[in-house]
């Protein structure tokens, strides 16, 4: 399945075949997407940067994939989660002391706080389904989980966001 193009938040797709172009065109978007999982922009930037470092070394192979940006996103998310696992005894994901950006109102946004209340798997599923636009079956394949589990994560994630944000009912997407 190819994710539709033309949207700010979707994959660049096969049109971006050059490493430099892919980096320039997708770095910021990927940081935004990974931030949904990390709830921490700095952590997301580090993960995306490292993922591109890995892509650099493997461009000969990964550059031939249909959607190398999806590869980078997957690696970046896994790197971010892995790093979180390593330091989680010290602090929860998205709660990094000393990294608040006072010049960046987004980081004080309610959404970020709400995301931090969600388990990382739910954030990951919400990102892939509601931002990247993958159907549940593809989300399940990418996350290595049964479809029913993914549906549960999505449902609970939406409900938790609703509770945290105190908004109107967030319907099932």
């Amino acid at each position, binding site marked *: 399945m190819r994710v539709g193009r033309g949207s700010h938040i979707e994959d660049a797709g096969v049109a971006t075949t050059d490493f430099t172009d892919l980096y320039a065109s997708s770095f910021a978007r990927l940081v*935004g997407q990974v*931030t949904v999982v990390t709830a921490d922009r700095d952590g997301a930037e580090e993960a995306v940067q490292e993922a591109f470092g890995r892509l650099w*070394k493997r461009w000969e192979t990964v550059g031939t994939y249909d959607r190398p940006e999806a590869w980078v996103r997957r690696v970046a998310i*896994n790197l971010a989660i892995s790093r979180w696992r390593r330091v989680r005894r010290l602090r929860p994901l998205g709660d990094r002391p000393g990294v608040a950006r006072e010049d960046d109102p987004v980081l004080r946004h309610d959404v970020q706080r709400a995301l931090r209340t969600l388990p990382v798997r739910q954030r990951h599923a919400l990102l892939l389904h509601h*931002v990247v636009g993958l159907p549940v079956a593809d989300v399940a394949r990418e996350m290595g989980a049964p479809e029913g589990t993914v549906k549960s994560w999505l449902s609970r994630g939406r409900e938790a966001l609703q509770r945290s944000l105190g908004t109107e009912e967030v*319907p099932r997407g």
Partner: protein
Amino acid sequence: MDDQRRSDPTSRLLTDFVRHVSERVVVPEFTPGGRGARSRRRQAPSELRVLAAVVAALVVIAAVALVVAYGPRSTRISPNRTPATQPGPAPTQPVPGSTSTTSVPAPAVTGTRQITYEPFTATGIEPSLHVTSRVTGTCIRYGGGAAGRFYFRCFGTPGGIYDPCFAGPTSTSAPLVCPPSPTSVDVVAFTVTSVTSDEPPSPSRTPWAMQLSGGQVCLLVSAAWGGLGPYACQPPLTQQSVADCHAPAASQPSWTAACQVQEQDASPFASKQVTAVWY
């Protein structure tokens, strides 16, 4: 599907969040700070393909010549199985900063060298190593090395991730040494501003690099990523090369590792002989 997503409140909420974050990201100039990429110039993919083809052809010619000249006439070399007696590159000699391990208890195997990477002398960085750049930033300390020593995963300012890095006799008060591979004499000197983990050394030793029988060097990526890795293999890219491997297993007569040709879930794993591991 796009229209449906745009009308879905959850999608709108999250995509707006992503857009807000993305618009505030200053895209840094790409500098391949990741290991392996630091010490080599970027080549065009077509050039790499030509180079890989030439290398593969030379390897095949050399192998055929050796078999014809010295091999038993009854030997058959299956494309999917490498006989243990097939001539292959010897393990790469360690750089001067490395020493073969003799004091650390090792599994009783032959054919796989266990090498402790020692980039320091008593007075500082091993003189034969060439410091190509100096970076400052924070590090995460993690265990798994030989003799209970730590590896360090370091994050440069403003960017670049260096992993693993090694501390000298004075721990992190002096710059760490971050090699792009165990066989490189070019290293990065990393000055640590803070260490953000207090993990004890892991009781199980984990090599940070290994060399396969084909000569490929694979580096531990201290991150889990699905069912792939965690050892990412470096070029040269040949028909026999692999993309990533699981951790090596101490088996007889030499260590082996399950490796796959492509970093894709569907890519099958095959057992590869390991000629050397570095701690």
